[in-house]
């Protein structure tokens, strides 16, 4: 029995992106280790109650990102190179980009941003 993913209708991101993110989280958490055989597209679609074409798209995008490899006739697997550290860096990078954008909007210089970051880290260290 394949476990479905948790998707939210209230999430404004498209379904395929939600599916990609949940699969990456499973890989980072080690639930799905490198070499792990992913459920077939139809199995995951039925378990998640989402269309086949949407799961297909998520698998294709994960493949182009190098998280998943598809072997002809055998299905899809978590890539051996899908290092947890690498995925973690990509995940962290998303937040860093958001932080830099926010700093830009607020008109903070690079030095000011670094000072804020150091102050925040110090604050956390005290707790």
């Amino acid at each position, binding site marked *: 029995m394949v476990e479905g993913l948790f998707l939210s209708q209230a999430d404004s991101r*498209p379904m395929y992106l939600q599916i990609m993110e949940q699969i990456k989280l499973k890989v980072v958490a080690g639930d799905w280790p490198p070499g792990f055989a992913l459920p077939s597209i139809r*199995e995951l679609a039925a378990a998640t*109650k*989402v*269309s*086949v074409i*949407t799961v297909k*798209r998520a698998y294709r995008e994960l493949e182009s990102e190098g998280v998943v490899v598809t072997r002809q006739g055998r299905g899809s697997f978590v890539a051996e190179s899908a290092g947890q550290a690498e995925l973690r860096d990509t995940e962290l990078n998303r937040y860093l980009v958001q932080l830099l954008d926010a700093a830009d909007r607020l008109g903070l210089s690079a030095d000011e941003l670094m000072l804020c970051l150091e102050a925040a880290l110090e604050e956390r260290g005290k707790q």
Partner: protein
Amino acid sequence: MTDVIQMRGVAKSYQNFQLDHIDLTLPAGEIMGLVGVNGAGKSTTLRILMGLIAPDSGSVNVLGHSLPEQQVEAKRDVGFASEDMRLYKHKNLAWHMNFVQSFFPSWDNRYAQHLAQKFGLPLDQNLKGFSHGQRVKAALLLLLARRPGLLILDEPTTGLDPVARSEVLEELAEVLENENRSVLFSSHNTHDVEQLSDSITFLHDGRVLASEDIESFLEKWRCVRCKGDIDPQALQSSNLAEFRRSGSLINLKLDNYNDSTAAWLQSKGLEVVEVLRMTLEEIFIANVKRGRAQ
């Protein structure tokens, strides 16, 4: 891949309504949602597919059988449900299950029992006492348990409460596991069809406005917010479905959005502020509005 449904140039005229050269293709293993407002022609289209109405012209093929001539062969492996489905009021669900089982060797009794439990339907109560939702679920149970290769469902979720609707959609998802089973279902509500459908066909005033796989729909349409002063005439294009102005802000709904669209808008003197994805419902409404304008 073979097609389980093929309609080519199907037309049908009534006194106050006409179905205008409908082309529809459903490949095996896919789920298609037929979306349109009340009176768009959804039920007429589905009834033609079931051989219940003969078209004035055009060709109809279901599971390799030509309709309406070979409808008996076609119907063996088709499950059809519509709102006016009649069940026997003075018989209970168990009686109905035996009745359908006696006609269809493909009947899966274990699955039927599972569905009765899942839908919360008592087997021994006469259907007279069933609520509307229970009756709809009973009719669906009777056709799902036959495990037909093609399901044609006319508004299967209309009039159901949110819990019953989610139960029905969850059971339809079970069909996804088998690559040989296909579904065509209609709704006036895009939310019902968008989660499970591989493709969507928009029907309006007896015409197909658009028919495409769902990922393409969602990728092609964008709502673009721009700043600037421009005469709507200058943006006239078959891709523009909506133009609205609020102060200095202009809201555009655009089909076939791609990398060059922003440059095109800039060349017209507009500054792009924001590009937003659209929901299937917004895309449907934009399609209808564009259809009216043309």
